[in-house]
């Protein structure tokens, strides 16, 4: 292994590869910041460029774009509540409220440190345990994914505080309904498509996120234009605050980061999950770990609530290289594009990749460390400048957000219908927001609910309609018991408090 590391270091530290890491990280950060544009599109467009490079150089560049985008995606989540990529939606849950409290600099710094730590810790796991971890990625079957999605849904309780329980639940139902639009994967029957072919592929996740977050946020601000506190708020926002963390905040991050890295990495290793699921799960789990006082802050600018998903999505991003490199299984659209590129270079992924192309395996892992350091160096000093976005007068900022939302969604599908649908959803979401309906439960239910249904029905199909899959395998039992414990504990506590 030492030998491998040395080979990797040698390859990764060549001038050309160092430049590729830098270019990749920089391009990725920018792409990640722009709402709508994700790493998948960027990497797909890069394949023709990388052709003619050495395989390791090409892969290093693509990997740089990938984790750079996950790193940069948090910026727009925090500053304007417009998640740059799906994996950073959960970041906005606490990052945006924090920025609204005049702590934008701090929020961006927490996100940068968490991303760095998550990515680096996960790269260490990748280094020491990638081959054995390939077993983990195959250990999960449909019933276990079903359990994981339910576990993720328990995070909804984070938004149901202070009498909003019913509203949060209503948003969950709305999210589940939106998730069921489109051709049903298991029986090819169109559902809620109203015989409109634009709906037959379902509603895209990015579209829902952009409509309910970015667009409706901008519209809500317009509606609240006469708010007397607005001017005062504007002034406080332009002073973005210190980016230095105090002792208390550092302490919180030190406890959050290790557990979120492990969780994020494991979820990233699973081909059926990915960084979005990882960030949601980490957010929900973190809320179960913290004390009651911190729990109240979730959704209102909690340090733990921001650090957890930011750590997890970067860890998951590194984790997704395990099935890609050791098994040749792409877990996401992004890794599928990368797999195509690998095959194009004539490289056969698999357990033998160690022996056949050691320089590729090790140099990619080594370039991850370099990339993480570069991203941190790149991002930290820029925070004060980036955060100045908030100081932009609202009369400029709002049209810009609307502009980027519309062009972003159009660039994804090149379909005008998506623009109309996004505006429609955004208008409904704005009305709901004005009546204090929370949006995060809708997003959670939309992502997790769709996957939950699919995996449940697939489990039933495999077990010939019997529910025994719920207790047939130890892994499923463990996940199910965890769910019962968490839900039971919440119920018990709420009764206990009332008495």
């Amino acid at each position: 292994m030492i030998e491998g590391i040395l080979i990797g270091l040698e390859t990764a530290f060549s001038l050309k590869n160092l430049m590729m890491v830098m270019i990749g990280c920089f391009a990725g950060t920018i792409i990640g910041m722009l709402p709508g544009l994700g790493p998948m599109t960027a990497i797909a467009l890069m394949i023709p460029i990388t052709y003619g490079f050495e395989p390791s150089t090409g892969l290093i560049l693509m990997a740089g774009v990938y984790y750079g985008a996950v790193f940069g995606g948090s910026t727009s989540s925090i500053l304007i509540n417009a998640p740059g990529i799906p994996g950073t939606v959960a970041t906005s849950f606490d990052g945006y409220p924090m920025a609204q409290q005049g702590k934008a600099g701090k929020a961006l710094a927490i996100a940068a440190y968490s991303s760095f730590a998550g990515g680096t810790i996960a790269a260490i796991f990748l280094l020491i345990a990638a081959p054995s971890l390939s077993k983990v990625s195959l250990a999960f079957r449909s019933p276990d994914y079903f359990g994981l999605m339910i576990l993720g849904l328990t995070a909804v309780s984070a938004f149901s505080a202070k009498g909003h329980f019913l509203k949060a639940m209503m948003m969950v139902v709305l999210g589940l309904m939106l998730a069921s639009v489109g051709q049903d994967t298991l029986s090819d029957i169109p559902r809620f498509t109203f015989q409109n072919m634009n709906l037959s592929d379902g509603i895209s996740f990015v579209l829902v996120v952009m409509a309910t977050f970015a667009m409706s946020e901008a519209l809500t601000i317009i509606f609240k234009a006469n708010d007397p506190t607005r001017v005062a708020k504007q002034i406080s926002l332009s002073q973005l605050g210190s980016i230095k963390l105090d002792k208390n905040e550092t302490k919180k991050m030190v406890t959050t980061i290790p557990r979120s890295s492990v969780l994020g990495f494991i979820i990233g290793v699973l081909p059926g999950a990915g960084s979005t699921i990882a960030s949601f799960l980490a957010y929900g789990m973190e809320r179960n770990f913290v004390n009651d006082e911190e729990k109240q802050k979730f959704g209102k600018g909690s340090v733990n609530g921001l650090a957890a998903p930011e750590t997890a999505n970067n860890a998951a991003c590194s984790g997704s290289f395990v099935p890609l490199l050791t098994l040749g299984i792409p877990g996401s659209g992004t890794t599928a594009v990368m797999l195509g590129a690998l095959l194009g270079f004539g490289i056969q992924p698999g357990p033998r990749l160690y022996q056949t192309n050691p320089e590729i395996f090790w140099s990619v892992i080594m370039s991850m460390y370099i990339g993480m350091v570069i991203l941190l160096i790149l991002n930290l000093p820029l925070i004060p400048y980036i955060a100045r976005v908030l100081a932009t007068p609202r009369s400029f900022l709002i049209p810009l957000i609307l502009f980027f939302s519309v062009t972003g969604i159009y660039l994804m599908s090149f379909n005008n219908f998506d623009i109309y649908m996004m505006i429609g959803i955004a208008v409904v979401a704005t009305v709901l927001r004005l009546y204090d309906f929370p949006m995060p439960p809708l997003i959670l239910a939309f992502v997790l609910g769709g996957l939950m249904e699919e995996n449940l029905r697939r489990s039933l199909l495999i077990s010939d309609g019997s529910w025994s899959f719920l207790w047939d395998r130890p892994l499923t039992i463990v996940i199910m018991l965890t769910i019962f414990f968490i839900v039971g504990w919440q119920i018990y506590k709420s009764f206990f408090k009332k008495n």
Partner: protein
Amino acid sequence: MLNKFKKLISLVFATVLLTSVSNTSFAADKLHFVIGGGAGGGWDGTARGTGEALTKAGFLNSASFENMSGGGGGKALSYMINTKPSDTILVQSTPLVLRSITRHSGYVDKKNAAKVTSYKDVVPIAGVIGDYGAIVAAKNSPYNSWKDVVAAYKANPKSVKMAGGSVRGSMDHLIGALAFKEAGANPNDVVYIPYDAGGKALAGLLSGETQILSTGLGEVMGARDQVKILGITAPKRVADAPDVPTLKEQGTNAIFVNWRGFFGPPGMSDGDRKKIAKMLGDVQKTPEWEAVRKRNAWVNIYNPDKKFVKFLEKQTVEMTGLLKNLGVIK
């Protein structure tokens, strides 16, 4: 006077242009590719790769691309049919045939039949590349050949669960069903387990929740070390994977090509059609095409003009029978 002069000049110009057009062998100056899906997908790669090879090899002066996703490619199809754009071709693949079948069998109610378009509404130019179907088992599976699968299936149809990367009635499902049907088993008893992507179906197979996977050969090339490819739906073994047996050599005459090809708008002239078809064939002999092909691990299956139409007709008949058999259509 001046007007007449102008007319004369333009007439001369038009004649010169026309003769110059008919004199050059590949006159297509520019070609616009319409893609029914988003960036990064299979159609997108085919169109952009082909366009790149055509321009680099000097067959075209410029190629432009337009993504038009929606309705599984239906939006791009109706664009071609309704606006009949000039110098424009559409990239399509096997799902177009499936779409034609479901439309003509009354699967879609009358009101929407017009929205579901078929390959007969556009002009088939040529099929350029293709992928064969593959039946795959995990490395540690008890099945070592396609015959083992058929034997186990005939003993107990429920014991063989077949994974695929798309919905029921999709290509992945049909590849497996065709193989079982040709092996003399009732394809309707196959328990098909759909996943929402090829990679996830592969993970399902390797996790042991399904016994076999029905997919495209290209989809499993990345995981060749983890799986046994029990058979492919090719007429003979392919050069890229010479050790992979065909189903045919194992006594199951299941031939299936997931083709990708190009179509013109309705009313495209025979001259234009033949010219583009020839260009698409000639480019495959150039190193520029070979570079693109290798990068994407494509299999050249050039199938122009009438041959292409015949092929589409044959595939339609085959798939109609299969879809009826499976109860997807009546």
